[in-house]
């Protein structure tokens, strides 16, 4: 039951934040930069926190992965990506459609990689602090 409520709250706030971003920036670009931004930021945070969780399971609440999945899963979206790609393709912007799709994947991977990398650095730093504290 606790799980159920956590996922629901995560989904509620994730979807709200996505709508908020879309409402703040109504400017029309050649490719849908709003969704692109939301998706890659979501990838970065997801990989960053997942790497921390996997390596520090004993120290982090077991509900943390569910919070991530609920919140960031709802924040990022795959269906809108498909919709916007099709709209670009149907408007005869075939180049922009493919460009948008490729950019989403490449930047998604780059941000996933940097999130993982940063998390590993944080973990190293964490370990150093523990060693120093034990030494004192």
């Amino acid at each position, binding site marked *: 039951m606790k799980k159920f409520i956590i996922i629901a709250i995560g989904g509620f706030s994730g979807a709200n934040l996505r709508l908020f971003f879309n409402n703040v920036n109504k400017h029309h670009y050649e490719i849908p930069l709003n969704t692109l931004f939301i998706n890659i930021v979501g990838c970065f945070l997801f990989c960053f926190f997942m790497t921390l969780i996997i390596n520090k399971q004993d120290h982090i609440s077991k509900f943390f992965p569910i919070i991530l999945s*609920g919140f960031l899963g709802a924040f990022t979206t795959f269906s809108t990506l498909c919709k916007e790609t099709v709209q670009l393709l149907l408007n005869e912007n075939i180049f922009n459609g493919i460009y948008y799709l490729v950019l989403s994947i490449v930047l998604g991977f780059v941000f996933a990689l940097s999130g993982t990398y940063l998390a590993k650095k944080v973990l190293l730093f964490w370990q150093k602090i523990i060693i120093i504290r034990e030494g004192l």
Partner: protein
Amino acid sequence: MEYFFVGLGGACGSLLRYYLGRFITSKSNSSFPLGTFIINITGAILLGIFNSISMDKNISILICDGFLGAYTTFSTFIYEGFNLFNNKKTNALVYIIISLFLGVLGYLFGIKIFKII
């Protein structure tokens, strides 16, 4: 009011994604992330269908932006693709390319389905 509707849809979408994803993963025993795959493709098809129907703005926000936006996910998709990439590079490429191809095709199918029928 639209924030309440998008949130309500988002909560339901996240719940369905979590429980359906867990159910599918428990049934399949391959390393291929079948759960997210099926969820993303069905979400894209459904979004196409709902976008081809004209409906009230609030209901559209509830279903399209809230429910289907939260039901499908890009972050888990990339995370799984990224992890596959670290183990088996070809599997990761196949997963990503097939997901995108079927997602785009699924959305197209969704908006055309009523015209075909």
